[in-house]
């Protein structure tokens, strides 16, 4: 099937070439990091995780959100999702791969990565996250590819494939729950030390990931003519809306608990992110921007007339993705480290090397997604004609 990715028009190849260029730039930036060490990033003793771990967290959410199409299609037999399911599954594959690569990029000694498996440590959440992520990657690539292959031959998929799909549903929830446990089990980091972190991760994932899925489906329609259906997109928009509302509701809970209880440790990180702490307020405009565009997006999605117009739908989905990317991909990680355990404030700003490595990984993920979707669309269009 893969040969179908080798046939494309001019703009397809321009897209592939630009992704490859960015991947090469990312690799060159990464080689600097390998040589000189992580000192080339903006991270330091106080803010010891940054852009990489933030992207990892956001992307695990995107991966988990595939369940928003897989669940209604396979468990509730909602036929309108029939043409979207494969997009969701392949997005999950690409997002899971990217999230694993971001972990790799963050390691001081990536050459020792296998130590996680050589010395399995069930007391460490990283161990469980590794199991969850690699399992989810295989579930989605195998089931997606097998179902597509069966479709191409015009036969129903084998029954073991169905089993994998059913396993992938609870598995999707598990990957983001375990990812939240990476953070919420650490005693000294009060922004993360909250029981609603896992639920909020899931809610924001189902909002941003589903919105991203709508956008990808629209891009496919525009570039290839493969339309996964307006009805499916509208249903997905409803799911994204509920996810978004739940996310902002839970964020509100965080604010209430911290500020009504008035416990300093619970307030400090939120103060730093949203109001400024001891005169340090670099992220305040960005966090409020995230809040406003996120709520604005939900408002658009709640008005039926606006949601029906593709233009407004695209705007709302883009705003929701950007809002949650800022919240999870910037605020969550940096906010967790500020103030430091000794109440000191260290300002983190990613360096250009860090940004290029991140762009490189995103490009690699997009390249894989492009190839997978190219094959999927070619097979689907062949069946239709």
């Amino acid at each position, binding site marked *: 099937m893969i040969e179908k990715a080798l046939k494309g028009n001019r703009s397809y190849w321009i897209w592939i070439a630009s992704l490859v260029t960015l991947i090469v730039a990312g690799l060159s930036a990464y080689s600097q990091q390998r040589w000189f*060490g*992580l*000192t080339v990033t*903006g991270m330091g003793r106080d803010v010891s995780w940054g852009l990489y771990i933030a992207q990892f967290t956001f992307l695990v959410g995107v991966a988990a959100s595939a369940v928003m199409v897989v669940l209604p299609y396979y468990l509730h037999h909602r036929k309108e999702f029939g043409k979207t399911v494969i997009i969701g599954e392949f997005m999950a594959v690409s997002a899971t791969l990217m999230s694993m690569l971001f972990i790799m990029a963050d390691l*001081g000694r990536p050459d*020792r990565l296998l130590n996680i498996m*050589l010395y399995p440590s069930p007391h*460490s959440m990283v161990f469980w996250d590794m199991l969850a992520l690699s399992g989810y990657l295989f579930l989605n690539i195998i089931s997606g590819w097998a179902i597509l292959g069966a479709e191409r031959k015009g036969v129903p998929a084998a029954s073991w494939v169905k089993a994998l799909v059913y396993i992938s549903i609870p598995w999707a929830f598990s990957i983001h729950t375990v990812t939240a446990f990476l953070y919420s089990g650490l005693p000294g980091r009060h922004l993360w030390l909250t029981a609603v972190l896992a639920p909020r991760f899931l809610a924001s994932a189902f909002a941003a990931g589903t919105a991203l899925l709508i956008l990808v489906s629209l891009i496919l329609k525009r570039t290839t003519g493969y339309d996964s259906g307006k009805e499916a997109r509208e249903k997905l928009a409803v799911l994204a809306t509920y996810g978004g509302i739940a996310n902002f509701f839970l964020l509100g809970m965080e604010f209430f608990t911290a500020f009504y209880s008035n416990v300093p440790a619970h307030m400090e990180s939120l103060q730093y992110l949203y109001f400024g702490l001891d005169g340090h307020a670099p992220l305040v405009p960005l966090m409020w921007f995230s809040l406003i565009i996120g709520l604005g997006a939900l408002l658009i999605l709640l008005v039926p007339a606006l949601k029906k117009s593709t233009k407004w739908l695209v705007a709302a989905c883009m705003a929701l993705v950007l809002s949650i990317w800022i919240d999870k991909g910037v605020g969550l990680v940096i906010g967790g480290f500020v103030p430091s*355990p000794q109440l000191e404030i*260290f300002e983190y700003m990613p360096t250009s090397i860090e940004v290029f490595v991140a762009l490189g990984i995103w490009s690699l993920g997009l390249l894989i997604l492009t190839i997978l979707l190219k094959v999927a669309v070619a097979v689907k269009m062949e069946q239709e004609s």
Partner: protein
Amino acid sequence: MMNQQRREFIKKTAFGVLAGFGAASGLVPAFSLEKTILPVWDETPVSGKIRWGMLIDTRKCKKDCQICVTACHHEHNVPHFKTRKDEIKWIWKNSYKNIFPTATDQFVTSDVLNRSFLALCNHCVDAPCTRACPTEATFKRWDGIVAMDYHRCIGCRFCMAACPYGSRSFNWQDPRTAIHDPSLAYPTRQQGVVEKCNFCSDRLVRGLQPACLEACPEQVFTFGDLNDPQSDIRMLLETTVTMQRKPELGTKPSVFYII
């Protein structure tokens, strides 16, 4: 022909004798050419038998004195980077509100506010760092010391996120470029791994006290076995009011402070 056989015989006998020496040196330590000092390993480690602890009398600690910090960092080849971002420290000084952020009374005596307080790894009984480590590169020793295996660490920095005391440092770059006066007492580390205070486990095994204690001219430190009711440290803990850093987190630190 005869010569050939003779030569063979002598050769084989010589090898046999050599092999005999080899075997004997393995069985009888007195014969061995390379010797291992056995008393170091005499005692079979019994988990939890000893719990090393430290008491810091902050009343005696001179504000601008850095002797213990310098001694520790020299002994353990801790690099000295100028930028805060790359900083590596095993023991350092900070003010009361930074070391005890959750304990600040509303009215602290000016004496305490002006004093400087030492911070180092607390060697917690329930250490969050060892729980978070995915490779057991940081682990709890039988004698209560939270140790590091620099050769196993993958540099994920989970232990740094987990430590509520900021006791851990990461080698953001090659540390050897910033060690100006190398010491032979302890190996240097590589780029990309985490390090921290080891309670001088390298010195304890040689029968020495921690480097910071030895260097201190004011007798600020008391070091000993917290499980031994007769030890100096236990006697002091039972007769003096002491504090720990962030006791509310349940980590049970092994470093105590007299304020």
